[in-house]
């Protein structure tokens, strides 16, 4: 199992200032993402993120100063991205 970009979704991305806008051609919706959500989405777009190894991969990628708080926030971001239909847990 791994976090992946939702199948069928073609994402168009634009970034200005600290904001990222993502157009999802599958849902037809435009999403406004903050910095951390955009970074995690970009990481998953680069390559699927193994579900069992998510925390390790995130810590390795972002090297946060407060790992526990960072991981808690990242889990919420992943759930949000999943709720928006941008990422999915793929077998």
């Amino acid at each position, binding site marked *: 199992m791994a976090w992946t970009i939702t199948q069928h979704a073609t994402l168009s991305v*634009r970034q200005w*200032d600290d904001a990222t*806008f993502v157009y999802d051609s599958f849902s037809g919706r435009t999403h406004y993402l903050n910095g951390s959500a955009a970074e995690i989405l970009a990481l998953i777009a680069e390559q699927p993120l193994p579900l069992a190894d998510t925390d390790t991969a995130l810590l390795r990628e972002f090297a946060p100063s407060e790992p526990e708080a960072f991981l808690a926030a990242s889990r919420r971001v992943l759930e949000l991205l999943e709720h928006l239909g941008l990422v999915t847990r793929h077998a």
Partner: protein
Amino acid sequence: MRDVVQRTLGPDLGDSRAASSLKSRGIDALHAMLRSGVRYGIGPFVVALKGQQRVLAERLHACYPDYPLAPANEFADASLAVARNPGLSRHWWSTRVIRLEDGQVFTTFPENATIAHLEWTLNWAIANRSHQFLMLHAGVLANAYGGLILPAEPGAGKSTLCAYLMHRGWRLLSDEFTLLRDEGLEIYPFPRLLPIKNAAIAVIREQVPEARFGPEIPGTHKGTVAHLQPPDEAILRMHETASPRLMIFPRYTPDTPLEITPVPRAQCFVEITQNAFNYVLRGEEGFRIAAALTERVRAFQLRYNDLERAATALDDLMAEAHGARDPSRR
């Protein structure tokens, strides 16, 4: 100096100056033509209009004199028919209706408000059908340096500002619709009568004595409305697109002489997507056009209470955006 011309596109009506215009026919001939229907071009669109009353011919002749007639077989983007009110009401003899293609009554109104309702019905028809364009609810003008887009909520003073600017060196493309077909971002003109409302009528009459107003129409759902004709140049050049350079979010604020605030790109993008009539419907293309426009223009919020000062500021901002003026001299 002429403004930035990109290319010409519209119904195949030829040069507006050479084409037969509504005023080229006398009122009697126009009245006869209206019985079976008249087609005329406005920018990229053709409007078909039908009606039996002579007064309709008189209004067309007075308010739309320079619009080019279109061939009878030209596809019409909107077909409007003005008729007497078929229903029984206290004032049935003096009320009129407009029907669209389906024959159903779209709006009912007093005879003296015919032009106002023709304009509003046409707005509705274009906004709901012309999805070959991304349509912003925004006034748009152009000068030698490029296009100025004025998105605004109703009541922000957009039409009043357009009315002033089009008499002060700017070419009117539209006071209501900014039409963008693709990421090339040419803006297609759609120059129409400007509905000036309530207190703004006296303001424009005083500050623009040369303004050509039609009669005042009291008691509409927007109060008193008087329609202002665009200058001849706006009609003659209604197939010349312009390239966007400046986006201004205007708001008339009685207590603020002049305040100009830069709008960050992210906010500008959000404003464009929320302002467009059909952003969601245009799908990914809408996203791409809105993004390209965000990157093309410089964007500012403008608060003002003096039209002349606002116009001077817009002249300067456009020159700066073009690189023709040093921003430090603002």
